[in-house]
C-alpha cells in the first residue's frame, strides 16, 4: 500500500493546495511542502527497512486489476533503481517547493497543484510495471509541466511550452504505438492479452520487428533524455520555465528518459538494443561534446546551465549502451548526481534572476563582492558540473568512461575530452557572473536562511555521493547486475 500512497498523497495534496491557495497562498506552500516531505520520509523508510539487500527483486508490490478484459492492471512495484530515483524525486520536490517560496506569487494554489501532479506522474513512471499504466503516468507528467512553463514561465514561455509539448507528445505517441505492437504480438505468440512488464519481457519477436518496436521506445526516451538532434526543446523549456520547473525538468524529467532505457529498452529488446548500441553510444558521446560547446557559447546564464544537461546526459546514454557493470552503474550515478548539481545551479540562477531580473551574463560580473555566499555556492556546483573528484558527478562520469573504454576506446577518449570541455563552460559561468569587476552596481540580498539551507543540503549530498557513494551504489548494483546477465538464447 505504501506505493499507492506515494502517488496518491501528492495528487490529493495538489487539489487541497489548489483549494487552499485561493485565499491563503502560504497554506498552499505548506501543504505542498508537507506532502512531498511525507513522500520523502516514506521512501526513506522503504530504503531503511530493506537496507541489507534484496534490491534486485520487486520488494514491494501492489497489483489491482484495472481493466481486466484488456489485461490492464494498476500494478506498481519497486526495486533498488526505482527506490533511488524516487528518493531523488521527492528530494528535489522538497527543494523545488522551497525554491518557489517567494518566486511564485500568482495563482499559487494552481501552481502547487501542477507541481505536485508532476511529481505524482514521475513517481508513477518510476513505479509502474504495467505498460499501459506507465504510458498513463508518462502523459500525466506532461500536461502539468506544460502549464507550469506556459503560465509561470518567463518572456518567451508560450513558444517554449508548445515546443516542449509537441516534442514530448509526438515521441510519446511513438511509444504508445510500440507498446500496442508489443501487446498484440505478445497475444499472437501466447494468446494472452497483457501489459504486464514481467510477462512481456520474454515475448518472442522477429529481429526486424523487434528493432522497430525498440526504436519506438528509444525515440520517446531519447527526446526526454535528451539525445542530441532531438534536444532542441530542452534549452527553451529549461530557460523559460520557472525555477521549480527547471529543477524538475533537469533533475527528474530527463531521468525518466534514462530510466525508460534501463527499464524497458534494454530488457525488452536485448538483441536489438545490442545491435543498436554502437549508434546509441556514438550519439551519447556526440551529445557530450556538442552540448558542452553549445553551453560554452551562451550568454544567457540559464540557457548555459540548460545546455550542460545535454552534455551530462550524453554520459548517461553512452553509459547505458556501453552495457557493462561499470558503465551502467556510472550512468545511474550520473543521473542522480546530475539531478542535484544541475538542480542546484537552476535554483541559484533562479534566485539570481528573481533579484536582478536578468539572466544575461553581460549584465552580471563581480557578483562575488555583492553576494559572496551565493557565489561560493555557484562555484561549488560549477565544480561539481565539471567533474571535480570528491563530488558525486565525478564518480558517475568516471565509471561511465571506465566502462566505455572497455567497449570502445575511441569513444571513451572523445568522451574524456568532453570532461575537459566541461571545464570551459563551468569556468566561464563563474567568471562571467561572479568574478570580474563589479560594474553594474547591483544592490541585492545574499542567500536568505531558507535558500542557504537548501544549498547546504545539496552541497552535503554531493560530497557524500562523491566520497562515500557505496550505500547508493549497493542499492542499484543488484538491479544493474540483472541487466548484465547473459541473455537467454545467446
Amino acid at each position, binding site marked *: 500500500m505504501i506505493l499507492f500512497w506515494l502517488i496518491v498523497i501528492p495528487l490529493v495534496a495538489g487539489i487541497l493546495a489548489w483549494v487552499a491557495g485561493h485565499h491563503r497562498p502560504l497554506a498552499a506552500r505548506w501543504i505542498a511542502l508537507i506532502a512531498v516531505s511525507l513522500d520523502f520520509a516514506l521512501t526513506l523508510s522503504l530504503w531503511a527497512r530493506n537496507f541489507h539487500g534484496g534490491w534486485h527483486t520487486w520488494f514491494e508490490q501492489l497489483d489491482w486489476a484495472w481493466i481486466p478484459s484488456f489485461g490492464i492492471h494498476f500494478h506498481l512495484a519497486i526495486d533498488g533503481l526505482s527506490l533511488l530515483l524516487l528518493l531523488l524525486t521527492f528530494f528535489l520536490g522538497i527543494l523545488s517547493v522551497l525554491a518557489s517560496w517567494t518566486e511564485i506569487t500568482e495563482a499559487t494554489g494552481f501552481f502547487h497543484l501542477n507541481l505536485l501532479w508532476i511529481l505524482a506522474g514521475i513517481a508513477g513512471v518510476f513505479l509502474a510495471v504495467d505498460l499501459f499504466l506507465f504510458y498513463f503516468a508518462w502523459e500525466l507528467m506532461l500536461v502539468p509541466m506544460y502549464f507550469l512553463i506556459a503560465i509561470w514561465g518567463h518572456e518567451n514561455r508560450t513558444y517554449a511550452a508548445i515546443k516542449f509539448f509537441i516534442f514530448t507528445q509526438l515521441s510519446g505517441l511513438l511509444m504508445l504505438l510500440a507498446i500496442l505492437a508489443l501487446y498484440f504480438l505478445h497475444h499472437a505468440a501466447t494468446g494472452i492479452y497483457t501489459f504486464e512488464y514481467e510477462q512481456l519481457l520474454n515475448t518472442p519477436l522477429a529481429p526486424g520487428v523487434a528493432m522497430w518496436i525498440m526504436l519506438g521506445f528509444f525515440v520517446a526516451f531519447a527526446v526526454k533524455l535528451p539525445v542530441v538532434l532531438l534536444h532542441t526543446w530542452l534549452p527553451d523549456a529549461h530557460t523559460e520555465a520557472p525555477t521549480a520547473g527547471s529543477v524538475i525538468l533537469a533533475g527528474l524529467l530527463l531521468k525518466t528518459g534514462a530510466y525508460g532505457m534501463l527499464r524497458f529498452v534494454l530488457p525488452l529488446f536485448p538483441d536489438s538494443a545490442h545491435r543498436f548500441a554502437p549508434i546509441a553510444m556514438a550519439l551519447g558521446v556526440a551529445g557530450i561534446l556538442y552540448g558542452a560547446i553549445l553551453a560554452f*557559447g551562451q550568454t544567457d546564464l540559464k540557457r548555459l546551465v540548460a545546455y550542460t544537461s545535454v552534455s551530462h546526459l550524453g554520459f548517461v546514454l553512452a553509459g547505458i549502451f556501453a552495457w557493462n557493470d561499470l558503465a551502467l552503474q556510472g550512468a545511474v550515478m550520473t543521473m542522480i548526481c546530475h539531478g542535484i548539481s544541475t538542480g542546484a545551479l537552476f535554483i541559484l540562477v533562479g534566485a539570481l534572476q528573481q533579484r536582478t531580473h536578468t539572466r544575461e551574463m553581460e549584465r552580471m560580473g563581480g557578483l562575488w563582492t555583492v553576494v559572496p555566499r551565493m557565489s561560493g555556492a555557484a562555484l561549488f556546483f560549477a565544480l561539481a558540473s565539471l567533474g571535480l573528484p570528491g563530488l558525486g558527478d565525478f*564518480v558517475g562520469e*568516471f565509471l561511465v568512461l571506465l566502462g566505455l*573504454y572497455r567497449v570502445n576506446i575511441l569513444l571513451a577518449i572523445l568522451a574524456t575530452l568532453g*570532461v*575537459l570541455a566541461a571545464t*570551459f563552460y563551468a569556468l566561464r559561468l563563474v567568471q562571467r557572473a561572479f568574478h570580474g569587476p563589479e560594474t553594474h552596481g547591483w544592490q541585492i540580498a545574499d542567500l536568505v536562511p531558507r535558500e542557504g539551507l537548501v544549498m547546504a543540503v545539496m552541497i552535503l549530498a554531493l560530497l557524500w555521493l562523491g566520497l562515500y557513494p557505496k550505500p547508493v551504489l549497493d542499492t542499484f548494483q543488484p538491479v544493474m547486475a540483472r541487466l548484465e546477465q547473459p541473455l537467454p538464447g545467446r
Partner: protein
Amino acid sequence: MFDLLWLVPAIPFAGALLLATLGSRMPRKAVAAVGVCTIAASAIVSILIAVAFLAAPPPGGAYTQVLWTWIDVGSFNPRIAFYLDALSLVMMVVVTFVSFLIHLYSAEFMEGDEGYSRFFAYMNLFVASMVTLLLADNLLLLYLGWEGVGLCSYLLIGFWYQDPVNGRAARKAFIVTRAGDTAMAIGLFLIYHSLGTLGIQDLMQRAIAQWGVGSSYAIAAAALLLGGAVGKSAQLPLQTWLPDAMAGPTPTSALIHAATMVTAGVYLIARTHVLFELAPPVQLAVAIVGAATLLLAGCSALTQWDIKRVLAYSTISQIGYMFLALGVGAWSAAIFHFMTHAFFKALLFLSAGIIIEALHHEHNIFHMGGLRRQLPVAFWTFLAGGCALAGLPLITAGYYSKDLILWHAWNSPAGSVVLWAAGVVGVVLTSLYTFRVIFLVFFGDVRTPVSKRPGLPIRIPVWILAILSIIGGYAGPPLLTFLKTALPAALESRAGALTETGSSAVTALAFLTGFGLAWLFFLSKPARATAVAANPVGSVLHRFWFADWGFDWLYDHLFVQPVLWIARVNRGDFVDAFYTGLSRLIEWTWRILRLTENGQLRWYAAGIAVGSVVFVAIVSFL
C-alpha cells in the same frame, strides 16, 4: 604513531571547511590562527611520523592505512587509503613544513586583504589536497588530490577576481593542466582495463608480470601519465600556464607554483617508476622533455622584466632538471632536487614578495635597484636563494642536487653527452639570469623608495628557508640512502672520459661563466646588455624568448580561437534550425492552403467539380 597518518590531510581539510563556512564572520586573528595552526599541526604530525618511521621502519618499508572503500563496483574497488614509504614520507614532510612557513608568512603578508579568510581557506584546502596526492595508495585517489591542487591553483591565481586578467590567467592554468589530466585519465582507463587495478603497488607488480619491457601497453600507459605530468609540472609542451599563474598572491606563487604543486608531475613519475622502466622510449622522452624545457625556459627567463616571471621561468627550468633526472633513471636525485628546490624557490618568492610589497607592488626589476642597503633582509635571503638556484659550488644546496643530476645524465645507461651538455648549458643560463636579477635589484642606484619593512612572521620563514637553502645539500647522502627503500638506485655505466669530480668541476665552471656574464652585462656596464638586445638578431631573439618561444601564439591560433569561433557561430544551435525550418514549412503550407478558403462560391464549385473528376478518374482507372 602511524595510525595518525590520516590526520596529515584531515587537519588542513577541517581548517579549510571551517574557514570556508564561518571564516567571513571570524576576526582576522582567529582566521590567521586557524589557517596557520592547522598547517603547523599537520607538519608536526608528519614530522613525528617521520621520526617514528626512521626509528622503526614498518615491515617492508611501507605502511598502508585504509580508511574506507571509496567506490565498489564489481572488480573496481579503489579505497580511500594512504600509503607511506620513504618517497611519500620525504615529500610529505617537505610539503607540510614548507607550507607551514609560507602560511606563517602569509599571516602578515595578506593582512590588509579583503579576502583574508578566503585566502586561508583555499591555502588550507591546497595543503590537504597536496598531501592526499602524495599519500594516495591508488591512482584514483591520487587523481582526486591532483585535481584538488589544480582547483586550488585556479582559485588562488584568480584570487583577486575583480581584475579580469587574473581570471584569465586562472582559467588558462586550470584548462591547460586539465588538458594534461585528460591524458592522465585515459591512462587510468588503460591501466585499469589491462591490469585490473589502480592500486599503485599492485599495478606496478602486475605490469612487470604482464607487460614486459617495451610492450605497447606499457608505452601507452607511461606516455599518457607523462601527459598529466607535463601539464601539472609545466613542462613542454604544456608549460605556458605557469608564467601567467604569477597573477596570484606571492605566497601562492611560492607554495603552489614553485615549491609543491608543480612538482607533482615529478612525484607521479617517480611513484609509478616501474611503468616508465617498462617503456624505455617514454623514459627517454621524459629526459628529452626535461632537457628541452630547462633550456627553453632558461632563455625565456633571461628576457623577463617582471621579477615573478623570471622566477616562474626558473621554476619551469628547474623542474626540467628533475625530469631530466627521472628520464635517466636517477629517481632519487630528482627527489633530492625537488627538496632543495622547494627550499630555495619558496625562499626566492617570499623574498621577492617582501621587495614587491616594499615598493608599492612594483614588479619590474628595471625599476628596482640599490635595495642591498634598503632591504637587507630581502637582500641576504634572496642572495642565499639565488646562489642555491644558480648552484654556487660547494656551499649551496642547489649545487649538490643539480650536480648529482648532471652526473647521472652523463653516467647512466640512458644518459648521453647531449643531455649532459644541455644540463650544463642550463647551469650557465640559470646563473646568468639569477645574477641579472640580483644585480639589477640590489645593486646600482635606488630607483623606487622603500615604503614598508617586514615584521617577524615574514622574517622568520625567510631566514629558516635561507638556512635550509644553504645546508639542505648536506642532507643529500642520508636522503639518497633512505630513498633506496622506495626507489631503485640509478644505474651506472660509462665512467671513463669524465669522472664524477670532472663533471662537478664543469658544473662549477658553468656557474662561474654565468656569473661572469651577468657581472659583465648587468653590473659593470649595463649598456652592453642594451646593445646586445638592440642588434637585429638579439632583438628578434629577445622578443621570441620573451613571448615564451611563441607557444601562446600558436595555441591561441590552433585551439583557443577555433573553439571560440565554433561556440560563437553555433550559439543558436544549427540543429534547431532544422526544426525551425520544419515549422516554417508547415506555416507556409498553411498560408498557401488558406488562399483556397476565400469565400467565393465559384471557386468552391470549381473545386468540387475538379475534385469529383479526379476522384472518378482514380476510381475508374485503377
